[in-house]
Structure formats: structure tokens, C-alpha cells
């Protein structure tokens, strides 16, 4: 019989993470790539919360706050970089920005 237990949260987290990861690798648009990163981060958050409730440990939720803060910082820096790149180039394509190629 179909039961709705905590493992479904984990499955959802894994699916979201995979979508994010595949999107990051496949898409060229930096904004979309950025959103994929956010998706991955939140998938991880979901997993943390799920485990937290599963194990009755409040630590899982604590970590989420850290991730949120770091993600916020990352958004600030990342968007700034993207805006800077967008200003210099008409088209937004992450592959054009490969100056670090060896």
C-alpha cells in the first residue's frame, strides 16, 4: 500500500539535485546555470531538513541556515559577476567566458 513516509522527501531532494546538476552542465545561459545551482543548493537543504526530522536532530535544520546565508552571499557575488559580463558582451553565453582555459 502506498504510504507517505520521510523517504519521499529524500527522493524529491535527489530529483531536484539531478535536475540542477544536469541543467548546470547542459545549459549555456549563465542566469539559468545560476538558477540550477540554486536548485541544487535547495535540494540539499531539503535533504538536510528531511534527515533532521528523520533522525530527530536539530542539527540538520541548523545547517540549512548556514547554506541559506552562503547561498545569499553567492547570489550577490555571482549576480554581480554576471551583470559585469553581460555589460561587456551582448549575448549571455557561459562558454564565451573561458579565459581560465589552460
Amino acid at each position, binding site marked *: 500500500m502506498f504510504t507517505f513516509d520521510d523517504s519521499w522527501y529524500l527522493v524529491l531532494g535527489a530529483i531536484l539535485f539531478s535536475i540542477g*546538476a544536469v541543467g*548546470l*552542465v*547542459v545549459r549555456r545561459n549563465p542566469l539559468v*546555470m545560476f538558477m540550477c545551482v540554486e536548485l541544487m543548493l535547495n535540494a540539499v537543504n531539503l535533504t538536510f531538513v528531511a534527515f533532521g526530522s528523520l533522525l530527530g536532530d536539530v542539527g540538520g535544520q541548523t545547517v540549512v541556515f548556514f547554506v541559506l546565508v552562503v547561498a545569499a552571499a553567492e547570489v550577490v557575488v555571482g549576480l554581480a559577476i554576471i551583470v559585469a559580463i553581460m555589460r561587456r558582451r551582448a549575448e549571455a553565453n*557561459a*562558454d564565451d*567566458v*573561458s*579565459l*581560465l*582555459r*589552460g
Partner: protein
Amino acid sequence: MELIWLIPALPVAGFLLLAAAGRRIGDPGAGVLASLAVVGSFAASVAVLLTLAGEPEGSRQITQTLWTWIPADSFQVSFGLLADELSLMMCLFITGVGALIHVYAIGYMRGDPEFARFFTYLNLFIASMLLLVLGDNLILTFLGWEGVGACSYLLISFWFTEPANASAGKKAFVTNRIGDFGFMLGTFLVFVTFGTIDYLQIDAAAPGVSSGTATAIALLFFLAATGKSAQLPLFVWLPDAMAGPTPVSALIHAATMVTSGVFLLTRLSPILEAAGWANDLIAWVGAITALLAAGAAVAQNDIKKVLAYSTVSQLGFMFIAIGSQNYVGALFHMITHAFFKALLFLGAGAVIYSMSHEQDMRRYGQLRKYLPVTFATMFIGWLAISGIPPFSGFWSKDEILAGSFEVRPAGQLLWVAGIIAALLTAFYMTRLMIMTFAGGTEQWRTRSEDLLPEVPHDVEADDAHASGHDDHHAHHLTPDHTPREAPAVMLGPLVVLAALAAVAGLLNLPFADSLHFLDHWVEPTLEGQSGLPDALVQWVLALTSIVGACLGVWFAWRVYQQHRVDRTRIEQPVLAHAWHIDDAYARVVAGPGEASFQGLADFDHDVVDGAVRGVGGATQQAGDAVRGLQTGFVRSYAFGIGLGAVALVLFAVVRMSL
């Protein structure tokens, strides 16, 4: 009276004064000042000598420690002066002859733009030489030893714009350094053997030294002496050293510095006493050097080169005496030689001066008409060096030859070698006198420089075989040149030296024990006396040597004055090249020597540094190889991260399930 310090201090003061203000004092003030310093030093030597003579025999030693120079643990080197019979005798003749040559140089160097610099060096030289003989330990002697070497270097390359002069200076210093190798090792060996380097302590401890150690020490110091005193195999620098101004040749390269090897071995006579076969080696090296150098002198055309080879040869005589443990003979000859060789060099300088700095004897001739005083004084020098009694050279040379006669193995052979060298000496000196002062014609009127038969050794002017000239002035000896006698300031020293060369034999006449003044004076400082043969044998030996000398003179007369024998038959190229010894060295140094040095430098650059650069290059290549992974595409990095994460998870899972 502790005036010993004044002896070297006066020339040092002169040196400092001239170094500071020489240019302002100028010409001839600087020369006068320098001469006064040396004269003062001579006076101080006399004063100390008188003090010393007042002491009873056997305790004539005054030491004066000025300060402790190198106080390292048990290796205490004092800056101490030792005035004894030997060192004071040396001081007297260094300052005496030195003062005369200083005065002479005032005339000779007149007008040279570097007049003051010349006398600065000259005073420094005298100071170093005095420290060499006065030092109470080996290291202080080494200070003087190196000091005179440095001054010699500076003075040989005095006219430095001529590459040959500069090269000759460097050659002298480096060759002497090879000898210094022996000096330093000898000093070290003395120190680890006796625990001291003070002469007085060495003298006290020497009688107990083992023969093997003594031989090693003697050989090492003999190596040092072959450098400074221009013996085989290191004599090659001395002929080149004639590139220096003539007063330098007279002072440093004839009278004083080159005798320091003889002095050193005499100082160490207590060790030589026990040195066994090292003494025979010394005697034989001396004899062979005397012979070879005398042979080389026969075929030289440069008047200074003749005298240079003659000096090498005469020093050889002194080493025969050292090796025969006839130290008094060596010292006696050192003194007489200083007188007559300085005289001959200064005379040659006067000739060169009056002949517009031409040194080739083939362009002289008949000069006695123009230069009567020079001729007269050099005539005495000629008699002295040729060994004609009663002039000084005869007595000292005869003492050496007589002393060698009874040396253990093959002393008679030594004596024969000495006689032949003496005969050759008489020959080449007569040749020099005839070519310069007599001969048929005034050659410079008829023979211009380019008409001279080419002697090959003059054209090679490579690094190791420099034939530097006394002067940097261009030679313009024209056919209408009229030689004029040198000024009085130059002739004065000549006359004094001629007088000394004539009578110096009185120092040590062989006839009666009471006449052995030198013998009695230095005896307390010396160990070991060779036995002289009995009186009859001595007479025979002396007569033989007189006959030999006369024979040499007569033969030279036939060849060069009467032209009975073609001179080219005597002046073989091999002699003109001094037996090709220097050439051989030059070839080795310039050939395999330089090649191996260059090879090592290339090795350093290519292999040692190459390895370092190789490591750097390999790192770079490794970096190049993996840089392709760094695509610059974020997604490929993300893909890599993903793969890595999966791999890690897999690894963990597999580990856990095992």
C-alpha cells in the same frame, strides 16, 4: 735599544706618505722622500747592528713583539721582529742596495707621469722585504714574502698599457703562488710537527725531528723557494719580469727579492740539517738551473734578458751551496751577487737610457767611447761576476764550489757542473760587454731594427711568453743618435756599487780563519756546516775555476771581437728559447690547460646547471601536458565534480559492502 721596529716602519711611513700625497709632492720630491726613508731605515739597521754587536756572541738575538697578529687558540702568530745576525745582515744589504737603487731611480724615472706611484711601490717593497727577513715566525715572513710578490707584480706591470708588461706581472705573481702552495703547506707541517711557527722555538725543537718529517718540510719550503728565487721548474717568470723598469729589475729581480728563497732555507737550516736527500735535491736543482740558465743567457740579444738568465744561474749557485749545507757560502754569494748584479743592471739601465730605450745589444757597439763611467763601472761588475780574482764574485763562487766538492754523493759532479756554469758565465758576460761597449762598429748607425736577423723568440708575444720591454716609450734610435752619459744621480750609485763589487770579497777571505768575518758573524744562527776540502785541494779547485773563467773570456773574445767563430753556431735557437721550457709551459697552459678549464666551465653550464634547468623544464612540460584538462568551461568542471562525487560515493559503498 728597541729600535728594530723602526727598520720596517720608515719605509712603511714613506709608502703611506707617498700613497696619500705622492702626486702633490711630485717629481723629484717623491723620489727624494722615498730614498730618505730607505736611508733612514739603513741607519736604523746600523744602530741595531751596533747594539747587537755589543752583546756577547751566542746571545745576539733581540725580539720585539709589536702585537699579536693572529691569536687563534694555540696558533699564536705574533707581529714580532727578530733581530739576529742573519736578519740584520739581510737588512743592511737590503736597505743599502735599496737606497742606492732608489737614488738611481730618481734619475731613471725622471719625467715619467707616474713618477710618484713608482716610488710608492718601491717603498712598500722595501718594507715588505724587511718584514720578510725580520719576521720572528714563518707567517710574518710569509707576509713579507707575499708583500714582495705583490710589489713585484705591481712594478712589473708598472707600464700597464703594454699588454706584455701586464701579462708578465700576472705571470710572476701566479708562478710565485705555486711556490706559496709549498710555503703554506710547509708552515702547516711545521706547526703540527713542532706546535709552533716561531723560528727560535723551531730552532730549539728541530734537533729531535724525524728525518721523514724534516725531508717533507724541506721539500715544501724548497718548492716555495723555487718560485721566489726562480729555480727549476718555476724560473720562467723571471726573464719576463724584465718588463718592469730597470731599477726594479736591479732591486727586486736581482739583488733582494729573488734571494728570499735562499734566506728562507738558511733560516730553516736546523730542519734542513735533518732533511737527508732533500739537500741533494736542492743542490742538484741548483746546479741544473745554473747550467741551463747560463746556457740560455749565451743566446739572448736583449741586454736585460742576458742579465735575467744570469740571475737565475747565479741563484742556482746559491742553491748548490744550500744543498751542500754551506749556508755561509750561499749568504756570501747572495751579498756579492747583490752588489755586482745590481751594478750590472743599473749599468744596463744607464746604457738603455742613453740609447733611447733600445735594449737590443745588436744595435749597440763601441759605447765605451760615449759612456766612459758606465763602461768603467760595468767593467768591474763584469770582472766580479766572471770570477776573476780579486773581485768579489770570485771569492764567493769559489767558496760555493769548494764547499760542494766534498758533499756526500757525487759532490765532484756538482763541482764540475758549477765550473761549467762559471765558464759559461764568463763567456756570456764577455759577450755582453763586447757587444755593448766594444765590437767593431757602432751598430745603430748601420743596422736599423728591421734589418736585424730575426730571432723567433721575440715575435711570440702570447700570454705566457711575453717579451716585454723595459719602457713604454716608442723606440726611436736613429742612425745619427749620439749616446750621452746618464746624469750624475744615476752614475753615483753605479760608482758606489762598483766599489762594493770590487772589495766585497773581504767579507770572507779563505786564507785564514781570522779573515772569515761573515762566517763568524752568522755562525750562531746556522746549523750544519759542510766540511771544506783541505788546503791543497782548495788551491787546485780555485786555480781550475780561474782557468775556467779565463777560458770563457778568451773564447768570447775570439767569437765576438775577432769573429774567428761564426756566432750563429753558438747562439742556437734552443738556447735563445731557453731550452723551450717556457714554450712548453705556455703550450700546456694555452692548450690542454685552458681547454680543460673551459671544459669544466662548459660542464658547469651544460650539465650542473643543465640538470637544474632540466628539472624546471620537466615541470613545465608536465604542466603543459595536463593543462588541456582545464577547458575554461564551467560545465565541464561541474561534470568533473559530479563524476568525482559519484566515484567517491561508489568507493564508500563498495568499501562498506565488503
